């Protein structure tokens, strides 16, 4: 609260206060429950200020000067630090070009800058914070429980082992095998692009950790049967038998029926 008091003289304070107030009173449905929701407490005023500058120069064109959103980008009030960390450190934001969905690319900012922007956005309204290390520790998670949750909540888009899949009109659910524990957690928490939000009432932090543990386990364990063929299921297997199996067969038949010299 001390921090908040210190920023009361900030030119943005009034706007922020107004928006926060509106959000708190108006939105029973925008309530976030659970332990990992945090406001700007963990970011210093300097961070927030630096973050705001970065925001205005790099993000405001689409998200509005005060992150209130525009035609080109959603409002970021209440999305929390986790959303900023996920979007910016996976390179999805700033958006390179408009398309069905934001693409992963090289991160455009340093970790420090990302934290500053996260601090600024977190200061705009309560939202999910960057997850604690505790919830990312796969040694603590239960892969079997995570597998059940993953199949129920994630597999329909991301495939049972996280190989990814198609959504409507050019959108897609990405492959999860290379995604870091932190980004997996943040994605569940914040629902980037069209991914639904899995708040802590839906999947508790422990359950999220179980899911991360499962994803890690299935992507890192070698398949008992040998090469995985992309873990894409019967389509990959069918193509393999047609293009490798039958090619082998035809090769053998040709050798078999060719006359010896």
């Amino acid at each position, binding site marked *: 609260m001390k921090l908040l008091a210190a920023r009361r003289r900030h030119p943005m304070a009034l706007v922020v206060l107004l928006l926060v107030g509106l959000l708190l009173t108006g939105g*029973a*449905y*925008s*309530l*976030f*429950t659970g332990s990992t929701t945090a406001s700007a407490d963990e970011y210093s005023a300097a961070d927030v200020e630096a973050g705001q500058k970065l925001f205005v120069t790099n993000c405001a064109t689409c998200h509005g000067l005060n992150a209130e959103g525009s035609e080109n980008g959603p409002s970021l009030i209440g999305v929390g630090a986790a959303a900023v960390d996920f979007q910016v450190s996976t390179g999805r934001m700033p958006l390179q070009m408009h398309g069905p969905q934001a693409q992963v690319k090289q991160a455009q900012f340093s970790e420090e800058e990302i934290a500053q922007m996260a601090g600024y956005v977190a200061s705009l309204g309560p939202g999910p914070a960057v997850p604690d290390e505790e919830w990312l520790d796969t040694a603590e998670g239960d892969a079997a*429980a995570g597998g*059940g*949750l993953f*199949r*129920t*909540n994630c597999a*329909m*888009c991301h495939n049972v082992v996280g190989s990814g*899949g198609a*959504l*409507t009109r050019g*959108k897609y*659910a990405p492959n999860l095998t290379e995604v870091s524990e932190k980004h997996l957690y943040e994605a569940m928490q914040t*629902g980037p*692009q*069209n*991914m*639904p*939000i*899995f*708040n802590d*009432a*839906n999947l508790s932090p422990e359950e999220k950790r179980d899911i991360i543990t499962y994803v890690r386990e299935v992507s890192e*364990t*070698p*398949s*008992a*049967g*040998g090469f995985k063929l992309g873990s894409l299921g019967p389509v990959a297997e069918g193509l393999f038998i047609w293009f490798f199996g039958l090619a082998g067969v035809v090769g053998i038949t040709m*050798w*078999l029926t060719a*006359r*010896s*010299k």
Partner: protein
Amino acid sequence: MTSIQHSGGPGGQVEEMNGFQNPGLPEHKPRITDSSPAAERLAERQIAAWFIVSMIGTIWFIVAYFLFPVGDSGALVRIHTAGVGLGATVALAGLGIGIVLWAKNLIPDAEVVEDRHDIAGSEEDQAIALEILNQAKDESGIARRSLIRNTLIAAVAIAPLPAILVFRDLGPLPGDKLFTTLWGEGVKLCKDIGMIPEENQIEPIRASDVTIGSVFHVIPENIRDSGHPLDEKAKAAVLLMRIDPSELNTDPDREDWGVDGIVAYSKVCTHVGCPVALYEHQTHHLLCPCHQSTFDVTNHCKVIFGPAKRPLPQLPITVDSEGYLVAQSDFREPVGPTFWEINTRETNA
């Protein structure tokens, strides 16, 4: 009879086509192994070498079978599978290559000509066969004794009926099973926790838990009361989403079927029954991963793309005194794929 022919006539036949004469088989060219005894011996040793390779493969298989254990993580099974599998491959390939080389290099490879004969039997054969059949007809009197013949045909015709009838008990008649689910007034909406044993609690969902952009995979709280939970789940699975009420185009009849933008729809596709589980929280579209039917949640899950025809049935929900989401009633229409009797009766709702 067969005979070996080198550049002679084609099996003794004279053939002409488009004015050209069939020039007959090309001259047989001997192989190296046919003319050089050294090459022949080399080929022999080569073939024997492949058979020895095969033996090595068999031994490899046996060693791998005992050397690499199974029954642990995927990595061990992988080593075992590749170990015995490649041993078997070598054993089989060695045999195959050796035998084929034998056939190709040592067994005479001159082409042999065989004459074709008519598929049909000779006229004499056909006449005798006909005579036998006629005799059978006369002796049995099948043509003459029409009473026996016709009753026999009738008896044989209906004889399979019991064979079909005994399959009657394969399953019960559908009855009203496709018109009812476990949902009913006051049944709490609970989180689907997959195939976890009974000790685990199933958690009911509070309205306040369902924030905008969330999706919950839902089962009824009484799922375990039924004798066949999977059968019930196959009908009762529900998706719960919260959407800004201003974005919902709610039908006047269904004004009170949701709670502050929280809506519940059947998860079973109206096409062929796959779980329509892909929710896009910005477009508010539900996509079926099996056949790509797309449903618009903002318009009562009407089909906007793909092979499905009917909208997903909506489950009317409300909040109980403790803040938990509960069903107002069962679905008002049958869930899942279209079936012939779909409009013949009302659901229990």
